[in-house]
């Protein structure tokens, strides 16, 4: 039997988490675990917490509540204008029905190398704010590799893009229907260089600094650790990582120039 708590204050949510409850946001991952009879005994729903909602521009950057559905992130005009790579990654997840349920925080907290939004968040240099009974900490999403028990991701902060920045997200669906990507790549380019991040590989999110686009794409292809599965062999995926890295970088450059 699972008990679901629906607190309306962050303090009560933290208290429940401190007692060993697990957070539940959109519930997508949890529904999948339900099929395996692996539900935790106590859940804390986060959708009523005001601190985890809202998308706002702060100092030219963005604050995105961890409880915001991916569909809201994808459609938000400020996200699209400032960091299209994040909007595109969110928009590329599964289907509309799932995007309206799944949240940005829940998607990141799944720590799944094939999830799209974390790849984009790492590319833009986003940080996550986590709160627990012990206090609060801010961690770059890139360094966020596991959820500490009792902690809740409250929101994400995306820096202001410097002048002349362009960004783009590319993923390859080998069958043209929604599933985890064969390969995925997020690109952020600036006048000084940029960052390429590759997902859907064992060492995701794999960060490659960009000086030359083609070299970065080749480097990503070499250093990524894809696995062989129904979407392609390792050799094929390496070629596709290079291809989709180039595509993401190309679009990012075009946007930077515009």
């Amino acid at each position, binding site marked *: 039997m699972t008990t679901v708590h629906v607190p309306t204050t962050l303090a009560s949510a933290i208290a429940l988490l401190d007692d060993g409850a697990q957070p539940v946001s959109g519930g997508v991952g949890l529904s999948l675990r339900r099929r395996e009879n692996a539900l935790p005994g106590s859940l804390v729903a986060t959708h009523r917490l005001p601190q985890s909602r809202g998308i706002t521009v702060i100092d030219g950057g963005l604050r995105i509540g961890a409880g915001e559905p991916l569909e809201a992130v994808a459609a938000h005009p400020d996200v699209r204008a400032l960091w299209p790579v994040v909007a595109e990654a969110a928009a590329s997840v599964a289907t509309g029905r799932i995007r309206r349920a799944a949240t940005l925080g829940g998607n990141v907290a799944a720590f799944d190398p094939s999830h799209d939004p974390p790849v984009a968040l790492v590319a833009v240099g986003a940080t996550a704010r986590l709160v627990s009974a012990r206090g609060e900490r801010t961690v770059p999403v890139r360094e966020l590799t596991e959820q500490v028990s009792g902690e809740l991701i409250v929101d994400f902060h995306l820096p202001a893009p410097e002048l002349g920045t362009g960004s783009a997200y590319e993923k390859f669906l080998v069958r*043209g229907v929604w599933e985890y990507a064969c390969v995925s790549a997020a690109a952020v380019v600036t006048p000084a260089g940029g960052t390429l991040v590759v997902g859907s590989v064992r060492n995701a999110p794999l960060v490659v600094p960009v000086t030359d686009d083609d070299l970065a794409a080749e480097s990503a292809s070499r250093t990524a650790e894809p696995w062989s599965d129904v979407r392609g062999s390792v050799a094929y995926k390496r070629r596709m990582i290079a291809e989709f890295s180039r595509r993401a970088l190309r679009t990012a450059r075009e946007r930077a120039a515009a």
Partner: protein
Amino acid sequence: MATPDVTAPDLTEPDLGLAVEPSIIGTSVQRVDGIDKITGRAQFVGDVRLPRMLYGAVVRSPHAHAIVKSVDTSRARRVPGVHAVITSADHAHRKWGAFRPDLYPLAVDRVRYVGDEVAAVAATDPESALRAAELITVEYEPLPAVLDLDAAMADGAQLVHDDAEGNVAHHFTLERGNVDEWLARSDVVVEGTWQTTRQWHSSIETIGCVADWSPGGRVTLWCNTQTPFLARQRYATALGVPESQVRVIQTEVGGGFGGKSGDDNTSVIAALLSKVAGRPVQLLLSREEEFLASRPRIPLRFTVKLGFTRDGLVTAKDIAVVADNGAYTGKSQAVLGAATVRHDAIYKYKAVRADSRLVYTNLVPTGAFRGFGNPSADWAVGQAWDLAAGELGIDVVDLLLRNAVEPGWVSPHNHRIGSCELKQCIEKAAELIGWREKRANPTPNRGLAIGASVHVSGRRSFGDYDGSSAIVRLTEDGRATVIAGEGEIGTGARTTLCQIAAATLGLSISDVSMSTADTELTTHALGALASRVTYVAGNAVREAALAARNQLLDGVSTLTGVPAAELDVVDGVLVAPAADPDLRMPVGAAVRKLIYRPGGTPIVGVGAFDNPSEFPDESRFGNESGAYNFVAEAAEVEVDPATGAVRVVELAAVADCGTVLNPALAQGQVEGAVAQGIGMALTEWFDGPSATPDRANYVDYKLPTAGLMPKLHVAFADSYEPTGPFGAKGVGEIALDPIPAIVASAVADAVGVRIHELPITPEKVFWALQEDE
């Protein structure tokens, strides 16, 4: 994303020479069961609730091949709520199967594939049943397994069944005409080997059954079966009881596509559980189980040799076919037969030869799937035709037109072609896709292809009978009830049969309803297979309706003194425009008058129809159907050379199904078949060499979505089948058949690489392009 552009079917009303209400035949009347389905009233297996009903769960083998050393059920029996736990000790040890009985209801001593049923449990709720099933301990001793065709056919290969030497479940050869001589005299000979893979039906409702074994020894099965009467025969064999002890009632069926034609153990296990528990049991497969327990499309490997004269006339065809049967046979033997001979009724071959072999493997057993072997035959032979066009330097549209069969043609297997508008289909498909314009103005990385296929309208398969019978009862309130055992599996057959009855009787469609199929109460029927219901059952219903109509007119004639020949029924009212202009008697009033009188009689018409076909002999010689339906389909694809990804951009499908009784339903059949064909070509596969599920789910196995549908032109040939009801033939399967082949040929046209093994994955196309460079 391309918006499907569906052109309205071109329907020219043939002169039927009958008093037909034109608003019924050839009109997209609403499905008679549509409201019940969209409001959730329709009862599918999962909706059936009987008092004291239990829920079943099955224990399946995790081994591809193993000896079952022991089964310990003691812990499962102690789970609260468990009322039955069954193993091989609880059945009659009778093997069953449509053609080659090789399947036990639960494995006896040996399991032969991952998913083979070993034991089962029934409990008061599904969770307890699942928990108890997990507590059954089976001790296995693994055996070597044959996990692909080559391993199974290798010298000294491990046998899947000890009585099948060389793992051959079935083997036949045929030669009609002198193939070697014709090939020697040919100017161009093309050859190649093509392979298909398992495809799952993926019906929206999984296979299920509610079984109720009464203390008197009779068992009633509420099944989502396509074939209630054939299922009854087979399940009785499997249960070791006389047929008289088994009653099958068809529930609503959430899609069949061949997958619910009674070759799997689900209903048999439900019955055994009910017998032991003494209570009704519902067993409904999970999505994961459906991948293991159903009977997917059989993988076929075709080696094809085709000969042509310089001017593009086909001479001979030589094929060798090996088929991956999986662990048990089901209907795959018949599928292999159809895959071997059916396509010889598309083009005018002078001689054909075949060597066809059905081979056991330790993989998921295979069976019937929409197209019944034809999509696989077309995958190989259709691509060989495309290759030949290239070799000959003849446009493929012209090559197909030059060789297409015509009315009166007799195939090498004695398929007697009656109505046939294949050439019209080819011409229309080419026109709809803009073939000549696109050929004249090629677009980089885009390619075109066209293909054709033939299907039966019913096939003599189960003994020398492919008939149907029906009862039409006129009711005292002026309606008609069609009583027939053919059933409805979601295609709309119930609606078209009601249309046929309504048109024959002069009633409105809303005044006609159809019974549930029930082996106890309805007429005998072979059910929904081989695209037969519209044609075979349609004729039976029409005969029954005519008989009822004649009884009504004769009866009213005695009541009124107006000669029967002067009477007619228009909009549910008896009239006699010439003999008695004042006569207006509602049908209900007439029926009531004919009953409520001394010696009164009801109006009950009985009709029967047997397909005017021949029962083919051992070598598959014989005119298997009374009517053949045809299709031509043209596709344009776009290939991304950087990834190998293939997108079907535009597709034209033109079917010859005789009179289109209900355009919306016929169009739905064609669109669905195109989608399923695109899935077979481009999206549906499991990883790994055996192409069977390691993880049986839709994470790895992907169905095409609406977003993959091309700009689609659906049209129907102007056609009339003299032996069909109002000129109609079957249409349920045909439009799937050419799709995978034309997608592959269009890829070859676009970028010059030809894929020989399904599915067409981007990776295969990509590496082939790299080799090309």
